[in-house]
């Protein structure tokens, strides 16, 4: 990791504290106030915003569009500085089939290590700060995302972030990048691998409280800014007798696809809401079946205990020795309560799809009224 080593080197080169160091926090004495924002060896300044470089934006865009499945994901590289996580580079991870988990995980790890090594050789940032994931119609809740993020949150400095890129929204003219981190209550529940009802209640977990969103900013470095500016300017075509539409040439002509009245993709969105609802219902059905089974077993156990007690009372009344009260758990196998994580995530999917539909349709309304106002 480049960050701590550089910070350590800086700290070492600073003059030794002249005053006797306070016994409680001796490290603060060594770092002058002006440098305290920059030197953050122990990752004490919490990350509260994400800054994406223009290069990362374009890389994620390209990878998300070209990936075969809607599961394009990759790693983000960068550094954190005074509460801002600056993501300066990224690279895609190969898409692996679900079968040979063990083998593919190892090959991904090998791939990752050699990419990082190669990037270091050309002076690029090589510390992993999180990962990105492409999604369609805002629905990014899935088990693998959470599994990866839990691993990251434990291993990476500052816990790492996940940047979610919405392909369908980008195609509609609004390139969207959102950054998330798992909430501490979700992590706590995850560590106990316990997502039964009582755990959900005690952690106050619903699908909206699994992730906390971090503000994202996009930044272009001056070189990129000037280059993009150059692309946008139009030059007069050297040919004199061209048609008026091509009289001026520009690498990036303005586009007005946002003003398109046709709100496409609504049918697909509706279908996906239906599908998500179906799978949610199936999952709920499973849960209900399991909890009925639990209730049945428990009732049988309770019955047995009650019967034994009655018998014992009768025997005591007759002056006989009471029968021993056996361990019921050995006689009856009460299944453990099922995990509700899957159903919670599915509900999150439903909500995300519905939210995306609501946004699209409200946009459609605005555009329709705008057109009639314009034409009337």
């Amino acid at each position, binding site marked *: 990791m480049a960050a701590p080593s550089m910070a350590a080197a800086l700290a070492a080169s600073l003059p030794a504290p002249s005053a006797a160091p306070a016994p409680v926090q001796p490290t603060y004495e060594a770092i002058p106030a002006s440098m305290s924002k920059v030197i953050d060896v122990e990752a004490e300044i919490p990350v509260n915003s994400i800054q994406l470089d223009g*290069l990362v934006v*374009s890389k994620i*865009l*390209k990878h998300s*569009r070209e990936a075969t499945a809607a599961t394009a994901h990759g790693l983000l590289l960068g550094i954190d500085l005074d509460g801002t996580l600056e993501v300066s580079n990224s690279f*895609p991870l190969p898409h692996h089939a679900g079968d040979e988990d063990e083998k593919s995980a190892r090959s991904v790890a090998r*791939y990752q290590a050699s990419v990082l090594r*190669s990037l270091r*050789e*050309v002076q*690029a940032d090589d510390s992993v700060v999180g990962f990105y994931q492409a999604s369609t119609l805002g629905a990014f809740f899935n088990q693998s995302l959470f599994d990866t993020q839990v691993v990251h949150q434990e291993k990476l400095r500052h816990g790492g972030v996940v940047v979610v890129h919405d392909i369908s929204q980008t*195609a*509609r*003219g*609004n*390139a*969207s*990048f959102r950054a998330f981190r798992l909430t501490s209550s979700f992590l706590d529940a995850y560590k106990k691998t316990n997502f039964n*009802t009582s755990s*959900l*209640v005690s952690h106050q977990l*619903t699908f*909206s409280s699994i992730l906390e969103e971090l503000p994202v*900013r*996009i*930044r*272009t*470095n001056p*070189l*990129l*800014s000037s*280059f993009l500016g*150059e*692309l*946008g300017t139009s030059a007069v075509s050297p040919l004199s007798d061209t048609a*008026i539409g091509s009289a001026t040439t520009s*690498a*990036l*002509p*303005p*586009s*007005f*696809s*946002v*003003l398109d009245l046709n709100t496409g993709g609504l049918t697909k969105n509706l279908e996906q809401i239906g599908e998500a609802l179906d799978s949610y219902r199936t999952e709920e059905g499973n849960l209900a079946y399991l909890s009925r089974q639990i209730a049945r077993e428990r009732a049988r156990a309770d019955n047995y205990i009650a019967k034994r007690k009655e018998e014992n009372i009768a025997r005591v009344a007759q002056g006989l020795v009471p029968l021993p009260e056996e361990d019921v758990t050995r006689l009856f196998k009460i299944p453990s309560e099922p995990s509700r994580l899957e159903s919670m995530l599915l509900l999150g999917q*439903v909500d995300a*799809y*519905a939210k995306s*539909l*609501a*946004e699209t*349709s*409200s*946009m*459609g*309304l605005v555009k*329709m009224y705008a*057109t*009639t106002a*314009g034409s009337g």
Partner: protein
Amino acid sequence: MPLGSSSSAIQIQNPASASAIQNVPRTPTRITIHPVALFSILDHYLRRKDDQDRVIGTLLGIRTDTEVEVRSSFAVLHSETSEQVAVDMEYYRTMYELHHKVNPKEVIVGWYSTGSNLNTYSALIQNFYSQETTPFQAVHVSLNTGTEEGEQAGVKGYISSPAGVLPKPENAVFVPVPVELQFHESERSGIDLLTSTASSSTSTSSQPLTDLEILESAIQNVSNMLDRVLAYVRAVLAGEAKGDPAVGRYLMDTLGANTDDLEKGGFNARLQDTLMLSYLANLVRSQAEVSSRLALINA
């Protein structure tokens, strides 16, 4: 969408001879570049070492008949002194293999360098890449970052052909090929996001934007254009400027758009559909919210 100024070079294709000799591929007449390749080059240039004048790297992409589509690029280590040039082959191979894992479709099509001077070393590197891409010709893209005084930022594309009586690797003629920026329409909004970020004073912009904000800026843009057109038309009417008939016809085509469809029943039908969808979406959302709260109630 052409990049850089156009050149006066002529590309001559002889279709008859090309079809006659099947195994000799035709020379590319057009290079298209995806923005991500350009941005990677700029980033590489930004991270060069102090003593490096220019940086080079490999271009990856797809070839069609007479067109080369550059999809991405990666940096390659190299060193140039007055006596020699060296390219880190091992590094280059590793990077290509790594890249190939993620993007199996993309192959090596050529190389890039920053700055716009072509020298003997360029010819040598070109020769090296030509060996890598045989039987196809390697393309060379030189990107001028515009950081040196008196030079304009731009991108130029070249193919090479041997020159001189005896073919030597360091002798080559670089023939310019037109270069164009190309990306998928669905990536357009991302590029727009970057250009608007670049033109803001702080070079940063916050995310996520709502759809309405984007619509607002687009409408404002259109409104500005209408103002310009209006100013022009007024100037023509007042006799201050000479009217261009072509502009007039374009204006008539554009502004005479027919919105009858919306005014008749179509508007109401669509309004009802959209309202229904909006209602349904909000209903689903509130149900989901209630359901998630109910799950928290311990029976």
